[in-house]
């Protein structure tokens, strides 16, 4: 789960990291009144789950109330990477001397939290990792020891020469690690970590992803979820424990298992079609889940055909068949449905479908080819 900059900053602050103050506004009036309270120059920052906000015009300096209003009006409602800006953060501008990068994320290869820091701030770390790996210092945190004090200094030493700055940065790195573990994060990025002309080290921008599997431990973080930043069908899928990702095509896919779901989308493309979505109904799906899945798929007006690809393992074919039949009774489904159904309780499932007037394929290639054909022939 991605959270907004202002939320990430709340977590960093709670862990003792120096972060300048800031307040969120949803209207230009609010923005102006916050800015007037701070006085001086402020930064108006779009709060969306996307990088490149600066380049997209979503981050602006303002020195007068008129400027604040002008920028707030421009940024609120603007679209960045398909996301509409509904909130802006107003924060006093800082006197920046240098910019560095400090990030921590779960690294697959070392199977542990890994820091990446660079004295070059404001960068795209992935880019730098490719073009100038020496500019990045990397450290894997052994889960047996946690972040050790000397390691925090080792990282901080690569950022600054001035001992006073190194000391502040080492402390921030330790606090960042504490924030990472205590909030169940899978990624936190401070970019940039600045030094001010008066010699203070501060985090002035932050990105953070919470491990979805940790949310049960952190009810307070669940509150951070911004439903306005998530399309309604995805919210509905998540709440029903389904995995759904909307795509641009017209073949609605309903599959059990993530790998098979991806392979199904790929096969749609292989046969010349375009998948409308990724949808995994999961392992032990009951009929009710299938109904919800169909509601979600049919809510996408682009969908011209609905393709079921079910290989029953834990999933029982009769459950899926029952769900399909139930859904056709309860909701008005315009696009045609083509079904592949094999595996556990296959016979029972096929019987249920047959009784409701459906036929089913047993081969994945056949069903996908048929679905694509149906779209093409209209």
């Amino acid at each position, binding site marked *: 789960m991605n959270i907004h900059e202002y939320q990430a900053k709340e977590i960093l602050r709670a862990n003792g990291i120096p972060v300048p103050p800031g307040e969120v506004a949803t209207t230009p009036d609010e923005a102006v009144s916050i800015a007037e309270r701070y006085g001086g120059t402020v930064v108006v920052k779009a709060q969306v789950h996307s990088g490149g906000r600066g380049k997209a015009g979503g981050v602006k300096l303002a020195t007068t109330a008129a400027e604040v209003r002008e920028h707030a009006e421009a940024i609120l409602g603007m679209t960045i990477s398909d996301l509409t800006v509904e909130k802006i953060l107003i924060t006093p501008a800082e006197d920046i001397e240098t910019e560095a990068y400090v990030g921590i994320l779960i690294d697959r290869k070392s*199977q542990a939290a890994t820091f990446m820091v660079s004295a070059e701030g404001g960068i795209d770390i992935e880019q730098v990792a490719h073009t100038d790996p020496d500019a990045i210092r990397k450290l894997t945190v052994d889960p*047996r020891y946690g972040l050790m004090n000397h390691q925090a200094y080792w990282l901080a030493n690569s950022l600054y020469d001035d001992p006073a700055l190194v000391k502040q940065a080492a402390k921030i790195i330790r606090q960042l690690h504490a924030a990472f573990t205590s909030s169940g994060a899978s990624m936190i990025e401070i970019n940039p970590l600045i030094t001010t002309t008066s010699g203070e080290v501060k985090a002035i921008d932050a990105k953070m992803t919470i491990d979805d599997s940790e949310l049960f431990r952190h009810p307070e973080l669940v509150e951070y979820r911004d439903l306005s930043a998530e399309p309604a069908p995805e919210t509905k899928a998540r709440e029903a424990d389904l*995995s759904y990702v909307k795509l641009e095509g017209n073949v609605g896919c309903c599959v059990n298992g993530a790998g098979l779901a991806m392979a199904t989308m790929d096969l749609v493309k292989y046969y010349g079609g375009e998948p409308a979505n990724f949808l995994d109904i999961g392992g032990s799906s009951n009929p009710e889940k299938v109904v919800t899945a169909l509601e979600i798929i049919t809510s996408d007006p682009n969908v011209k055909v609905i393709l079921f690809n079910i290989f029953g393992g834990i999933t029982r074919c009769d459950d899926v068949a029952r769900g399909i039949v139930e859904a056709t009774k309860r909701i008005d489904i315009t696009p045609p449905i083509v079904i592949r159904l094999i595996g556990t309780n296959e016979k029972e499932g096929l019987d249920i479908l047959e009784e409701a007037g459906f036929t089913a394929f047993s081969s994945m290639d056949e069903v996908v080819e048929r679905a694509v054909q149906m779209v093409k022939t209209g």
Partner: protein
Amino acid sequence: MAILVDENTKLVVQGITGRDGSFHTLQIMEYGTAVVAGVTPGKGGQTFQGPGGLGVPIFNSMDEAVAETGANTSVVYVPPAFAASAVEEAADAGISLVVAITEGIPVQDMARAHAFARDRGARVLGPNCPGVISPGKAKVGIISGDIVTPGPVGVISRSGTLTYEAVMLLTKAGVGQTTCVGIGGDPLIGTNFVDVLEAFAADGDTEAIVMIGEIGGTDEQEAAEWVSANLDIPVVGFIAGQTAPPGRRMGHAGAIISGSSGTAEDKMKAFEENGIAVAERPADIVGLIQAVLSAKFA
């Protein structure tokens, strides 16, 4: 022969009294695998009723279960909040292979559990995996015994149902398997492609390998390089997620393209560059395997 599990497997089911645990224990026992114990804290002393009147003793802890039964393998059907601890308990009790089926275990929990299992010399398969089956010998996990048949092909996959698809096609075509291994869809898994490839390389009977990857991470790329440098057995590969958009998690916690890293294109390229035949569709796997097998015996 076979890898990871076989006739010598003595299995403990962790979470045997839960919904998934009890259901799959029956299936595992029906396949003929020796389930010697179950563990559910607080239910020690009870008996799990298996098929054909076979009773499985339930213990409060892995420690007792292993001490009483000499178990060497465990399978974890414990809810996410407690599953990493169950893996640690199994490793601490001296289990040598821990198969973690559970999906949704917090990643930081698993980071510690993996480190602990390494320290204890235990191999973890998964988590978020369908387990492993050696046709005709042993089944540990949830891969259906109906779709496999003994034969010369080793199968490794990050996905569950996609494995079923590939294995069913092989079986239908009369191509049997030594062992089918689901390594799991999580970002931090205990056994990766290379680990399983090494095991197949050491197995005398595996004559070809199917390797099914997906988007996210670079495990397939490293496996491809390892194959090219170390493996004599021919490998056929497939990658799921060619149409997946970047930055979105595709069901599996590990199936996500981060920035430009972990794309299907990258992985397929790595396969091709390292002599691994790439199947365009799951259905093409069968033909490619048959080709490498007949070339071998030509």
